[in-house]
């Protein structure tokens, strides 16, 4: 379709589509890739001036709190709120049987209630709009029955202070009937297990993504020299982000204003509007700084988001006062955990390391983030794959993905490859190279794709392995399992894993670029701060695209909630999708700028001009120049001609979509970049302690727009990822179904002194489909690290501990000492 024939709307759509072609840079990088750039938000954050939702206060504000079930499963038989109502300072009490709330559920799962769910039901993608993609199916905002400990249930209160609200909840007199519960997903499938959902005959949750099959695994097993079978388990770990859940809401007549701690403020507004039956244009959503989300606050469907927002708004409407709704730390332990899984593996391999078949059965509790086999499709030439993944309801809060939903995939991927290498006695880096590819095809097909779409002909996996091996001293140190005792008496172990780099970004965003009258630039678009410092990168991109300097560009992403949103529900798109939005908008703005400049030069056409270092110059005669500032001096975005002549503003916007969520490879973009990770451990065989002495992460990021940001993501991923398999574990009491370690003393995540040095090595191959060939890195390291500890401990002591986290008791047990 020739773009000349397109209507305005069609042109925006056409411009917004993703491309399969390599994004070869057409500009000179001045700010992009530079070190030492001052972070956009750095001073505000370091000085404590950055305001988070939890910090907010408004005049006359009330504090909202909700009762959390103390039981794993129970029903309220009687509830008397009389004493709570009589407590001075209590301004409103919401009971489960109050008309605003009775019988009403949360809305807002992507594949569940709300209009998204209804659309999907209509299209036949899901059978029941109330039961989506493995999410906890029974989800009242405030009901009289609890299906897990920590579920908001029965009663909520708004009071003059948090202390009064807490005291009021204590004064509610209740009789409960405790009901049978089950904590383990495999136990929940047994015939004598209590059925947790009403009107159901099984705890198995329906899910459309249960079975994935490629080729014929039976054929693959026949071709194999060895069959390797093992079982692994991954227990629940918690997100535990720094800022606890909160929201602040105030009604202004028919308008509603919200300060949200949400990753996708626009999406949250959409869902909230639906629940409240409010026109969207009457809701204003602010998105202040956010304490550590990384996906956790990307679930608009759970109680700490959707449920809390609804209760706060209802209280605010009742009382006519602003209401800040809060969870305390021990309440944040419900609904933020990762998924739990038990995995049964059967793998066929040839003696040379070629894997012929992988069969996996994964049993998930409460929620399945991903089935577990996709990375073998995306990333290897293994022709025969089969994965059966089921999700079982248990008496625990619904899990959610936090950095990131690919954990089941990386867990299976690492364990399969490292078990195969161990069984064959091969160097695992060799096994990786032997099986690299995609979609049952070998790397020659990747090379073909690269050349057809303009990508450089580089072998990312080989480069990642080489860099990592060198950094950790692999060739000198690698040894057979259980053979290397260090001078300090501990057993040395090391391990390697690999995967494709996270070039599977989807997501949609839009933003505008305004060149202000003084020649500075504002990026217009709302975006929640999920912690990854995208704003600095956006400003670098816009500066280089416009021929300006980093310090000329600014973004104020907190308040403007109309139209321009840089964080779509798909998440995972901070740089690779949004970066393209900014690049497109900046190029359009530059075109407008040069058109305006051409008028001022009078005798040149726009295409004869270019910009550099805040100057617009004639390409054929660079001495002819004007500053950007003087060109735009009269271009007025907001100002009528007050007695003097003004010009149209230089403002341009762009929309971009990078594909939608779905099956692997659905966009037709094979992952070209790779990552490799190395770890060294020292196992104290007398105490079972696994000491992580060294981590080397190698990520092919395609292009590092902000090198410090890339390193920050890799460091963060290492600490989080290692912690998940070493010390982080949610521990339930079997007798009562109560979570025992509901605080940050007993739920243990790493401190600064817990691990040895972390090397963050990034490669820039240009092999990504993001801007300038970039590939996302925010989620990859954290997701890759957890399973890597298993093979490292195996290499140290010669015993597999496929039960994560690998705590000292398990190590001692494996050594026969406990």
């Amino acid at each position, binding site marked *: 379709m020739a773009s000349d024939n397109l209507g305005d709307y069609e042109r925006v759509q056409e411009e917004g589509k993703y491309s399969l072609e390599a994004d070869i840079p057409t500009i000179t990088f001045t700010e992009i890739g530079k070190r030492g750039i001052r972070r956009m938000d750095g001073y505000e954050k370091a000085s404590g001036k950055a305001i988070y939702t939890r910090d907010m206060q408004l005049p006359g504000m009330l504090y909202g709190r909700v009762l959390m079930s103390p039981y794993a499963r129970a029903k309220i038989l009687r509830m008397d709120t009389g004493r709570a109502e009589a407590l001075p300072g209590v301004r409103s009490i919401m009971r489960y049987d109050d008309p605003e709330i009775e019988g009403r559920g949360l809305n807002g799962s992507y594949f569940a209630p709300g209009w998204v769910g209804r659309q999907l039901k209509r299209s036949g993608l899901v059978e029941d709009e109330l039961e989506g993609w493995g999410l906890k199916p029974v989800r009242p905002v405030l009901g009289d029955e609890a299906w897990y400990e920590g579920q908001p249930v029965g009663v909520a209160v708004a009071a003059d202070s948090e202390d009064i609200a807490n005291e009021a909840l204590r004064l509610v007199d209740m009789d409960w009937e405790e009901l049978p519960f089950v904590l383990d997903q495999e136990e929940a499938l047994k015939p004598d297990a209590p059925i947790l959902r009403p009107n159901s005959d099984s705890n198995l949750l329906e899910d459309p993504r249960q079975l994935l099959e490629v080729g014929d695994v039976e054929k693959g097993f026949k071709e194999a020299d060895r069959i390797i079978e093992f079982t692994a388990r991954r227990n629940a770990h918690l997100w535990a982000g720094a800022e606890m859940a909160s929201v602040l809401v105030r009604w202004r007549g028919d308008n509603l204003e919200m300060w949200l701690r949400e990753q996708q403020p626009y999406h949250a507004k959409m869902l909230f509007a639906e629940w409240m039956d409010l026109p969207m244009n009457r809701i204003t959503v602010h998105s202040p700084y956010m304490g550590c989300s990384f996906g956790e606050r990307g679930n608009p469907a759970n109680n700490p988001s959707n449920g809390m927002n609804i209760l706060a708004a209802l209280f605010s409407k009742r009382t006519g006062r602003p209401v800040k709704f809060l969870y305390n730390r021990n309440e944040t332990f419900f609904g933020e955990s990762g998924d739990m899984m038990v995995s049964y593996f059967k793998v066929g391999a040839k003696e040379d390391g070629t894997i012929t078949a992988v069969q996996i059965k994964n049993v998930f509790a409460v929620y399945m983030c991903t089935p577990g086999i996709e990375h073998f499709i995306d990333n290897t030439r293994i022709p025969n794959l089969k994965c059966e993944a089921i999700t079982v309801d248990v008496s625990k809060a619904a899990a959610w993905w936090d950095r990131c939903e690919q954990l089941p995939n990386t867990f299976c991927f690492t364990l399969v490859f490292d078990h195969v290498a161990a069984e064959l006695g091969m160097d695992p880096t060799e096994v990786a190279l032997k099986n690299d590819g995609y979609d049952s095809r070998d790397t020659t097909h990747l090379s073909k794709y690269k050349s057809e779409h303009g990508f450089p002909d580089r072998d990312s996996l080989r480069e990642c392995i080489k860099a990592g091996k060198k950094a950790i001293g692999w060739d000198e140190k690698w040894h057979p399992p259980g053979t290397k005792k260090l001078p300090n008496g501990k057993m040395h172990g090391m391990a390697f894993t690999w995967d494709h780099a996270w070039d599977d970004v989807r997501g949609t965003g839009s933003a505008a670029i305004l060149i202000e009258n003084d020649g500075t630039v504002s990026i217009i678009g709302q975006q929640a701060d999920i912690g990854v410092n995208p704003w600095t990168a956006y400003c670098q991109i816009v500066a280089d695209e416009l021929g300006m300097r980093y310090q000329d560009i600014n973004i104020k992403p907190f308040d403007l909630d109309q139209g321009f949103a840089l964080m779509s529900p798909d998440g995972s798109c901070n740089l690779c999708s949004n970066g393209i939005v900014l690049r497109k908008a900046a190029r359009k703005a530059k075109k407008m700028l040069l058109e305006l400049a051409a008028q001022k030069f009078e005798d040149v056409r726009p295409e004869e001009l270019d910009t550099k270092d805040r100057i617009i110059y004639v390409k054929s005669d660079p001495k002819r120049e004007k500053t950007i500032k003087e060109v735009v001096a009269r271009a007025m975005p907001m100002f009528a001609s007050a007695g003097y002549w003004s010009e149209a503003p230089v403002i341009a916007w762009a929309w971009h979509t990078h594909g939608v969520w779905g099956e692997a490879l659905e966009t037709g973009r094979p992952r070209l970049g790779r990552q490799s990770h190395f770890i060294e451990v020292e196992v104290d065989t007398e105490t079972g302690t696994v000491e992580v002495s060294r981590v080397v992460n190698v990520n092919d990021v395609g292009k590092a727009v902000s090198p410090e940001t890339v390193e920050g993501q890799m460091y963060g991923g290492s600490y989080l990822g290692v912690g998940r398999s070493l*010390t982080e574990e949610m521990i339930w009491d079997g007798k009562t179904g109560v979570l025992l370690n509901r605080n940050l003393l007993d739920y243990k995540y790493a401190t600064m002194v*817990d691990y040895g040095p972390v090397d963050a090595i990034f490669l820039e191959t240009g092999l990504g489909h993001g801007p300038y060939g970039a590939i996302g890195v925010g989620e990859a390291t954290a997701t890759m690290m957890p399973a890597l500890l298993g093979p490292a401990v195996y290499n140290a002591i010669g015993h597999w501990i496929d039960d994560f986290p690998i705590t000292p*008791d398990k190590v001692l047990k494996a050594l026969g000492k*406990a």
Partner: protein
Amino acid sequence: MKKFSHVNALTIDEAVSILRRYGDRASLIAGGTDLLGKMKDRILSRYPEALVNLKTIPGLDFIKEENRILEIGALTRLEDIAIDQTVRGGYAALAQAANRTASPHLREMGTIGGNICQDIRCWYYRHPNNRFPCLRKGGGRCYAIEGDNRYHSIFGGSVEEGCYAVHPSDTAPALIALDAEIRTSKRTIKAGDFFQVEVTKTTVLDEDEIVTKILVPRPPENAKSGFVKFALRKTIDFPIVNCAALISSSEGKVSAARICLNAGYVKPYRASRAEEVIVGKTFNEADAEAAGSAAVSEAKPLPHNGYMVQIAKTMVKRAILACG
């Protein structure tokens, strides 16, 4: 937090008289790092109606050594003990124990008096809002016996043979190994006799009794002391097991030993069998290991804490070797 009254005591006598007057309706506060957590979580069977602040009493924050006795005021911060040159020089186990307690911030706040008087950390006992009415609260049973007891006692229980919660102090075993004495508002108690497990109590202190200072005799010249700790993280955490030892030796042979484990039993556990085994031996792996085995010879672990026996054994071994 729920409201309470607050009194700044100016003398020990005043604090004592308030305790006598209000009984268990009043609580003492020094560093506050243990008490405020319990009040926030509402786990006390009786939420205090009044707090009596000891920090306003002058003269309880000092470290001095006189006549080969180290004296430490009860309000002395753990960090000050950890970095004090006298303590580090002559009383290494105590300095090391103070230095391994909690986190840097908590050591700046927490006092030595508070550290030895702190409450247990059992996760059933500490579960918010008194979810478990356990033995220690005067309730019917110990939930840890049937539940997850991975951090509980390996040497049996107490409170009518029921409560299996361990004593979490890092400095307590060091004080016992160093044969310290605890001076209170009424008496002087040997550190080894100071700890006691009863309903709502972890020490032998009377309701109206307040720790005022710690007295530690300087170990003989031929003695060395040391402290080792096992926890999942290198900082912040309470011990899973710790151990302190004071060992005298002459001509390479152990002549006397005082070894104390903690966090493995309801109160600090004097490893007397290990002491017997190591006396007369030299400092070597095998003898230290044998002493470690002797230390845990009477262990009777619960279903989930068998691994702690191996760790306790190792802690004893390493504490001994640290004194070599």
